[in-house]
């Protein structure tokens, strides 16, 4: 992809399969450190699986993944997952209040999030402070997604994996989250890998783009490639999505 930036994550001939079904096939490429890379492609292309590989929730069948030049297998899984944060598409919550959910990452380490820090996180993601003691079952889909993002930020990850986090948000909330992620990227030099179905979002937010189809990476480069793809399948996909 880019030779300008050090890779935060590098895939080298990575395959992943479930039983006999091949989900990812020979993935090779890098996600540049401190940049926002979007992953686009049709449903079932293997994008979410690729994110789970980065976070160590699953392991490749073949090939190697390097996080900051160190093979992923050499990391302690807990250390790796705190360093590579992940906001899941379904924004799962533990039952209880918003505060209990925000406190979860620290509770797992035997620590506690102060109310002030929790309120700051809510403000960062554009949620009102009175939501802190609200039960999560009373939240809207968009509010849940924002709480999920805030919760991921508690570990202060160096790499942030986002799986379609704005798909259930209204336009105003979507813009707030985009602004928030850009701010985190700029302020902390956090590497962001963001799955999106919204090509306009990929163009506006992403520095780089991977286009995936049928478990393979078919085109990579600066996000502007989406305006004029070289690959004919990508071209068809872009036109299909745009139209």
């Amino acid at each position: 992809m880019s030779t300008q930036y050090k890779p935060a994550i590098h895939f080298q001939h990575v395959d992943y399969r479930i039983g006999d079904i091949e989900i990812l096939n020979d993935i090779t490429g890098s996600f540049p450190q401190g940049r926002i890379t979007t992953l686009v492609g049709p449903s079932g292309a293997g994008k979410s699986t690729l994110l789970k590989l980065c976070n160590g929730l699953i392991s490749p069948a073949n090939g190697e993944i390097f996080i900051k030049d160190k093979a992923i297998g050499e990391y302690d899984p807990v250390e790796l997952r705190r360093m590579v944060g992940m906001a899941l598409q379904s924004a799962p919550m533990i039952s209880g209040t918003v505060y209990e959910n925000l406190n979860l990452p620290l509770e797992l380490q035997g620590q506690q999030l102060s109310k002030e820090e929790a309120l700051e996180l809510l403000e960062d993601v554009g949620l009102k402070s009175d939501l802190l003691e609200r039960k999560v079952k009373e939240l809207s889909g968009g509010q849940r997604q924002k709480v999920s993002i805030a919760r991921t930020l508690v570990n202060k990850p160096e790499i942030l994996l986002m799986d379609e986090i704005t798909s259930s948000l209204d336009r105003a909330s979507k813009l707030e989250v985009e602004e928030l992620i850009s701010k985190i990227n700029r302020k902390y030099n956090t590497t962001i890998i963001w799955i999106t179905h919204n090509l306009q979002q990929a163009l506006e937010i992403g520095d780089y783009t991977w286009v995936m189809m049928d478990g393979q990476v078919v085109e990579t480069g600066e996000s502007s490639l989406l305006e004029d793809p070289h690959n004919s399948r990508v071209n068809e996909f872009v036109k299909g999505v745009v139209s």
Partner: protein
Amino acid sequence: MSYWALSLTLIFVLIPLVLSKTLNLGLGRDMTVATVRSIIQLLAVGYVLKFVFDSESLIYILLMVALMIVAATHNAQKKGAAIQGITWKIAVTLIFVEVLTQGILIGFNITPATAQYIIPISGMVIGNSMVLSILFLNRFTAEVEDHQDQTELILALGGTPKQAIHRQLINSIKASMIPTIESQKTVGLVQLPGMMSGQIIAGADPIQAVQFQLLIMFLLLTTAAVTSVFLGYLSYPTLFNKRMQLLKG
């Protein structure tokens, strides 16, 4: 009870058979098989118990208990097929519960170390432990499947497998213990326990029958708690690999 009176008890089998036939329930064959099996199994066990009691040999007592554990393990393991190595985990749980309860009973001289006490009490403990294992495994496999996203969430946030599965484990332990606790709350009010009723019918002093029943009830409470906790903590690690990844069945 005379053999004539015993044979008259088959009336209680005839009634449901007639109902099944009349209402086309299709349970006639199952009920007949169950009746024949219960007659053969109970008569056989009666003769075996008489032999073991008369011989007063520790080997025979141990063999009887081992047989109970093997049969209970075989029955319970079907419910936990999704959990790797479930057969030996259930067997270890049953052995642990049996050793613990008999150790306390005999160690504190609560009951004598004779076949007459060890075998029936072991039967109740192992039988109850088997049912608890089935209840626990049923609930635990459902909890793990239903809350897979929460397990992955905690792993993704840097939690350990034990933290990731904690809520599901606790929910399953609590759910499997509820029937034992609830039945203790209503004992004597709603139902008279089988063992106590049997003793009273056989002519025992009701107060003494109650004392033994209390012993059994308390014993079964320990059995319930130890079975579900022990089996739970033996089972959950096999749901994850060394990289702390949730293995999907």
